[in-house]
Protein backbone atom coordinates (compact mmCIF):
# COMPACT_ATOMS: atom_id res chain seq x y z
CA UNK A 1 0.00 0.00 0.00
CA UNK A 2 1.18 3.47 -0.90
CA UNK A 3 -0.08 6.66 0.70
CA UNK A 4 0.29 10.05 -0.97
CA UNK A 5 -0.41 13.50 0.45
CA UNK A 6 -1.54 16.26 -1.89
CA UNK A 7 -2.46 19.80 -0.94
CA UNK A 8 -5.98 21.13 -0.95
CA UNK A 9 -5.85 24.38 1.05
CA UNK A 10 -9.31 25.78 1.70
CA UNK A 11 -8.07 29.34 1.60
CA UNK A 12 -11.52 30.91 1.62
CA UNK A 13 -12.12 29.70 5.17
CA UNK A 14 -8.57 28.87 6.33
CA UNK A 15 -6.36 31.95 6.04
CA UNK A 16 -3.02 30.24 6.78
CA UNK A 17 -3.72 26.98 4.93
CA UNK A 18 -1.94 28.02 1.72
CA UNK A 19 1.28 29.03 3.49
CA UNK A 20 1.11 25.87 5.61
CA UNK A 21 0.87 23.78 2.44
CA UNK A 22 3.84 25.65 1.00
CA UNK A 23 5.70 25.04 4.26
CA UNK A 24 4.96 21.33 3.96
CA UNK A 25 6.46 21.35 0.47
CA UNK A 26 9.51 23.21 1.84
CA UNK A 27 9.90 20.50 4.48
CA UNK A 28 9.51 17.88 1.74
CA UNK A 29 12.37 19.57 -0.11
CA UNK A 30 14.49 18.55 2.89
CA UNK A 31 12.98 15.08 3.17
CA UNK A 32 11.05 15.90 6.34
CA UNK A 33 7.50 16.23 5.09
CA UNK A 34 5.80 13.78 7.42
CA UNK A 35 7.58 15.06 10.52
CA UNK A 36 6.60 18.62 9.68
CA UNK A 37 3.06 17.56 8.73
CA UNK A 38 2.60 16.06 12.20
CA UNK A 39 4.07 19.15 13.87
CA UNK A 40 1.64 21.47 12.09
CA UNK A 41 -1.36 19.36 13.04
CA UNK A 42 -0.18 19.26 16.63
CA UNK A 43 0.08 23.07 16.66
CA UNK A 44 -3.01 24.06 14.68
CA UNK A 45 -4.56 25.91 17.60
CA UNK A 46 -1.41 27.83 18.44
CA UNK A 47 -0.92 28.93 14.83
CA UNK A 48 -4.51 30.10 14.58
CA UNK A 49 -4.18 31.98 17.86
CA UNK A 50 -1.03 33.71 16.63
CA UNK A 51 -2.90 34.79 13.51
CA UNK A 52 -5.94 36.01 15.41
CA UNK A 53 -3.94 37.91 18.00
CA UNK A 54 -1.87 39.70 15.37
CA UNK A 55 -4.93 40.35 13.23
CA UNK A 56 -6.73 41.96 16.16
CA UNK A 57 -3.74 44.17 16.88
CA UNK A 58 -2.98 45.03 13.27
CA UNK A 59 -4.63 43.70 10.15
CA UNK A 60 -5.03 40.54 8.11
CA UNK A 61 -1.54 40.95 6.70
CA UNK A 62 -0.06 41.12 10.18
CA UNK A 63 -2.06 38.04 11.10
CA UNK A 64 -0.71 36.05 8.20
CA UNK A 65 2.82 37.16 9.00
CA UNK A 66 2.37 35.90 12.54
CA UNK A 67 1.06 32.59 11.26
CA UNK A 68 4.03 32.23 8.94
CA UNK A 69 6.34 33.01 11.84
CA UNK A 70 4.61 30.26 13.81
CA UNK A 71 5.09 27.87 10.88
CA UNK A 72 8.78 28.77 10.81
CA UNK A 73 8.95 28.19 14.55
CA UNK A 74 8.12 24.53 14.03
CA UNK A 75 11.10 23.92 11.75
CA UNK A 76 13.82 23.44 14.40
CA UNK A 77 11.71 20.87 16.23
CA UNK A 78 11.80 18.55 13.25
CA UNK A 79 15.48 19.15 12.48
CA UNK A 80 14.98 21.24 9.39
CA UNK A 81 17.66 23.54 8.05
CA UNK A 82 15.82 26.62 9.26
CA UNK A 83 17.63 29.12 7.06
CA UNK A 84 16.81 27.15 3.93
CA UNK A 85 13.28 26.46 5.16
CA UNK A 86 12.57 30.12 5.94
CA UNK A 87 13.99 31.24 2.62
CA UNK A 88 11.87 28.63 0.84
CA UNK A 89 8.70 29.71 2.62
CA UNK A 90 9.32 33.45 2.14
CA UNK A 91 10.13 33.02 -1.56
CA UNK A 92 6.82 31.36 -2.28
CA UNK A 93 8.64 28.93 -4.56
CA UNK A 94 6.13 26.17 -3.81
CA UNK A 95 3.01 28.30 -4.19
CA UNK A 96 2.40 27.07 -7.71
CA UNK A 97 2.93 23.45 -6.75
CA UNK A 98 0.33 23.82 -4.02
CA UNK A 99 -2.11 25.40 -6.44
CA UNK A 100 -1.47 22.64 -8.97
CA UNK A 101 -2.48 20.11 -6.32
CA UNK A 102 -5.58 22.12 -5.55
CA UNK A 103 -6.61 22.40 -9.21
CA UNK A 104 -5.97 18.69 -9.75
CA UNK A 105 -8.17 17.97 -6.74
CA UNK A 106 -10.94 20.14 -8.18
CA UNK A 107 -10.67 18.32 -11.49
CA UNK A 108 -10.98 14.97 -9.68
CA UNK A 109 -14.16 16.08 -7.91
CA UNK A 110 -12.75 17.04 -4.51
CA UNK A 111 -15.15 19.38 -2.74
CA UNK A 112 -13.77 19.39 0.80
CA UNK A 113 -11.13 17.95 3.05
CA UNK A 114 -10.05 15.40 3.76
CA UNK A 115 -10.72 13.57 0.49
CA UNK A 116 -9.17 10.21 -0.35
CA UNK A 117 -8.79 8.38 -3.64
CA UNK A 118 -8.28 4.67 -3.15
CA UNK A 119 -7.18 3.42 -6.57
CA UNK A 120 -9.27 6.26 -7.91
CA UNK A 121 -12.38 5.65 -5.82
CA UNK A 122 -13.31 8.77 -3.88
CA UNK A 123 -13.90 8.53 -0.15
CA UNK A 124 -14.94 12.01 0.93
CA UNK A 125 -14.66 13.32 4.47
CA UNK A 126 -13.51 11.78 7.74
CA UNK A 127 -15.35 8.50 7.49
CA UNK A 128 -15.31 5.43 9.74
CA UNK A 129 -12.51 2.96 9.18
CA UNK A 130 -14.99 0.33 7.99
CA UNK A 131 -15.81 2.47 4.95
CA UNK A 132 -12.14 2.68 4.03
CA UNK A 133 -11.74 -1.05 4.54
CA UNK A 134 -14.59 -1.78 2.15
CA UNK A 135 -13.05 0.28 -0.63
CA UNK A 136 -9.50 -0.96 0.07
CA UNK A 137 -10.63 -4.59 0.05
CA UNK A 138 -12.44 -4.04 -3.24
CA UNK A 139 -9.31 -2.43 -4.70
CA UNK A 140 -7.16 -5.34 -3.50
CA UNK A 141 -9.57 -7.83 -5.02
CA UNK A 142 -9.60 -6.03 -8.33
CA UNK A 143 -5.81 -5.86 -8.27
CA UNK A 144 -5.69 -9.61 -7.84
CA UNK A 145 -4.56 -9.45 -4.24
Amino acid at each position, binding site marked *: *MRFVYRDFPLSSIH*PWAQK*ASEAGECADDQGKFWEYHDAVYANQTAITQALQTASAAGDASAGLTAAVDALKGLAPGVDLDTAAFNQCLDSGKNAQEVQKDYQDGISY*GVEGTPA*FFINGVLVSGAQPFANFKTVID*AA*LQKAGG
Partner: protein
Amino acid sequence: MAEETQGPAPYRGPPRSGGLPSFVGTALAAAILLIAGGGVFAGGYFTNAAVDDDGGGTPVVVNPTAPAGTAVPTQPPPVAASPDDDPSVGPQDASVTIIEFSDFQ
Protein backbone atom coordinates in the same frame (compact mmCIF):
# COMPACT_ATOMS: atom_id res chain seq x y z
CA MET B 1 -57.90 -35.11 52.49
CA ALA B 2 -54.40 -34.70 51.30
CA GLU B 3 -55.73 -32.23 48.78
CA GLU B 4 -57.33 -30.31 51.53
CA THR B 5 -54.14 -30.11 53.58
CA GLN B 6 -51.87 -29.16 50.69
CA GLY B 7 -54.27 -26.51 49.56
CA PRO B 8 -53.80 -24.54 46.43
CA ALA B 9 -52.38 -21.37 47.91
CA PRO B 10 -48.97 -22.53 49.22
CA TYR B 11 -48.13 -24.45 46.05
CA ARG B 12 -49.27 -22.13 43.38
CA GLY B 13 -46.95 -19.39 44.37
CA PRO B 14 -47.72 -15.70 44.49
CA PRO B 15 -50.52 -14.36 42.38
CA ARG B 16 -49.47 -13.36 38.91
CA SER B 17 -50.77 -10.35 37.19
CA GLY B 18 -50.58 -11.68 33.68
CA GLY B 19 -49.92 -15.40 33.48
CA LEU B 20 -46.75 -15.89 31.40
CA PRO B 21 -45.57 -12.48 30.33
CA SER B 22 -42.15 -12.69 31.92
CA PHE B 23 -41.51 -16.07 30.33
CA VAL B 24 -42.82 -14.95 26.98
CA GLY B 25 -40.75 -11.81 27.19
CA THR B 26 -37.61 -13.83 27.84
CA ALA B 27 -38.38 -16.16 24.97
CA LEU B 28 -38.99 -13.23 22.66
CA ALA B 29 -35.76 -11.60 23.69
CA ALA B 30 -33.88 -14.83 23.05
CA ALA B 31 -35.52 -15.20 19.66
CA ILE B 32 -34.67 -11.64 18.73
CA LEU B 33 -31.06 -12.16 19.77
CA LEU B 34 -30.87 -15.33 17.71
CA ILE B 35 -32.30 -13.60 14.67
CA ALA B 36 -30.10 -10.56 15.10
CA GLY B 37 -27.05 -12.72 15.71
CA GLY B 38 -27.82 -14.76 12.64
CA GLY B 39 -28.08 -11.59 10.65
CA VAL B 40 -24.73 -10.38 11.85
CA PHE B 41 -23.07 -13.70 11.12
CA ALA B 42 -24.68 -13.88 7.72
CA GLY B 43 -23.60 -10.33 7.00
CA GLY B 44 -20.08 -11.16 8.03
CA TYR B 45 -20.12 -14.26 5.90
CA PHE B 46 -21.32 -12.47 2.81
CA THR B 47 -18.92 -9.59 3.37
CA ASN B 48 -16.02 -12.00 3.64
CA ALA B 49 -17.22 -13.94 0.64
CA ALA B 50 -17.36 -10.73 -1.33
CA VAL B 51 -13.83 -9.60 -0.53
CA ASP B 52 -11.87 -12.81 0.00
CA ASP B 53 -11.28 -14.04 -3.49
CA ASP B 54 -8.63 -16.59 -2.58
CA GLY B 55 -9.60 -19.09 -5.22
CA GLY B 56 -11.23 -21.39 -2.71
CA GLY B 57 -14.28 -21.99 -4.85
CA THR B 58 -16.54 -19.71 -2.88
CA PRO B 59 -19.99 -19.94 -4.48
CA VAL B 60 -20.88 -16.32 -3.74
CA VAL B 61 -18.98 -14.32 -6.34
CA VAL B 62 -19.07 -10.61 -6.90
CA ASN B 63 -19.13 -9.91 -10.61
CA PRO B 64 -15.39 -9.70 -11.29
CA THR B 65 -15.88 -7.65 -14.42
CA ALA B 66 -17.88 -4.93 -12.69
CA PRO B 67 -16.17 -1.53 -12.42
CA ALA B 68 -14.62 -0.93 -9.01
CA GLY B 69 -17.02 1.93 -8.50
CA THR B 70 -19.89 -0.51 -8.16
CA ALA B 71 -18.37 -2.03 -5.02
CA VAL B 72 -19.84 0.86 -3.07
CA PRO B 73 -23.12 1.87 -4.69
CA THR B 74 -22.94 5.48 -3.55
CA GLN B 75 -19.50 6.06 -5.08
CA PRO B 76 -18.98 7.82 -8.38
CA PRO B 77 -16.82 6.00 -10.95
CA PRO B 78 -13.08 5.89 -10.22
CA VAL B 79 -11.00 8.76 -11.52
CA ALA B 80 -7.43 8.62 -12.72
CA ALA B 81 -6.07 10.60 -9.77
CA SER B 82 -2.36 11.25 -10.12
CA PRO B 83 0.05 11.04 -7.19
CA ASP B 84 2.07 13.75 -8.94
CA ASP B 85 5.47 14.11 -7.25
CA ASP B 86 4.00 14.66 -3.82
CA PRO B 87 5.14 13.18 -0.49
CA SER B 88 4.36 9.51 -0.11
CA VAL B 89 5.08 6.46 1.96
CA GLY B 90 5.06 2.90 0.71
CA PRO B 91 6.34 1.29 -2.46
CA GLN B 92 5.82 3.02 -5.81
CA ASP B 93 4.43 -0.20 -7.32
CA ALA B 94 1.93 -0.92 -4.53
CA SER B 95 -1.27 -2.57 -5.73
CA VAL B 96 -3.31 -0.06 -3.74
CA THR B 97 -2.54 3.65 -3.68
CA ILE B 98 -4.38 6.07 -1.42
CA ILE B 99 -4.10 9.73 -2.39
CA GLU B 100 -5.24 12.16 0.27
CA PHE B 101 -6.17 15.73 -0.53
CA SER B 102 -6.12 17.79 2.62
CA ASP B 103 -5.14 21.06 4.19
CA PHE B 104 -3.36 21.82 7.41
CA GLN B 105 -5.79 24.23 9.03
